[in-house]
């Protein structure tokens, strides 16, 4: 009976899969806005989410890489900042105007 229920629920869920792996991403964003979490702590949490997404073969949500890029920028790692921004642009070409604007600033 339990199995049947699980199957039923799975049946509903498989109709539409989430487009992205979220983990605790939005909670990290709120922690960032509130200033409760420093950049190093957030980077660690986001890198963990990134690994889990990769392990499950899932895509990261819009803005994830860009947020990570900003954190790397704040901790002085500009090579990683550029790398993450480029990845955001590759995954989401919709971001290219803004990412180019940010890259231009970063290179100044």
């Amino acid at each position: 009976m339990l199995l049947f229920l699980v199957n039923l629920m799975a049946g509903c869920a498989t109709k539409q899969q989430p487009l992205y792996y979220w983990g605790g991403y939005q909670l990290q964003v709120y922690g960032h806005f509130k200033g409760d979490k420093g950049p190093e702590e957030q980077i660690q949490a986001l890198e963990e989410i990134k690994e889990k997404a990769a392990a499950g073969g899932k895509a990261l949500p819009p803005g994830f890489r860009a947020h990570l890029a900003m954190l790397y920028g704040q901790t002085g790692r500009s090579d990683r900042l550029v790398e993450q921004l480029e990845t955001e642009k590759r995954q989401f070409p919709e971001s290219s105007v803004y990412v180019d604007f940010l890259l231009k600033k970063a290179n100044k």
Partner: protein
Amino acid sequence: MKRLVSVKLVAILFGFLFLGGCATRANYDYTAFKESRPTSILVLPPLNSSTDVNATYSMLAQVTLPLAESGYYVFPVTLVDETFKQNGMTTPADIHQISITKLREIFGADAALYINVKQYGSSYTVIMSETRVTAEGRLVDLRTGKTLWAGTATASSAEGQNNSSGGLIGMLVKAVITQIVESLSDKGHPIAGITSYRLLSAGRPNGILYGPRSPMYLKEGSPTP
């Protein structure tokens, strides 16, 4: 005779009321939305008309999930906020005044979302306490300036946990909220998450339409309740 006329009149008026009620509830006019079909959405920091200072960022932190899962590219809310600050725009009121031409130039977004948090927080009465978050949103095409969609949503802690905020995004939101309840003392934040989901998920009555990254894109006849 006079009485008969008035009875008829009342009946007709009732009919109109009834029809009017149906029409405003079921049929949002999506003409402008369908002409525009935006692919990317820039969410501006929400205006805060409530008394709680947390409202703006509590809401802004939770808008990406419903919009992204509905099929849109959502600009990185933290970085966007930072860009505004670096350009001397520190309050949502200032930011909401920026011209659409300027927004389009910097971000390259198809549309911008203007949110106003009308209510955020708890009220206490003798019998019970309630935490409620109400927000309204307006989606504006940054190429034409046209309003593509507008809506409002509310959520309350008094609704109980067994209400059917079903569907995929509802499940995702619930999972996140469970984490929040365990880790935060800010009671408004999980409720704001539900409000954001109700306001900004596609496939809800009078809600936004699905975006190009969703498998449901262009497939919706009329949004299912």
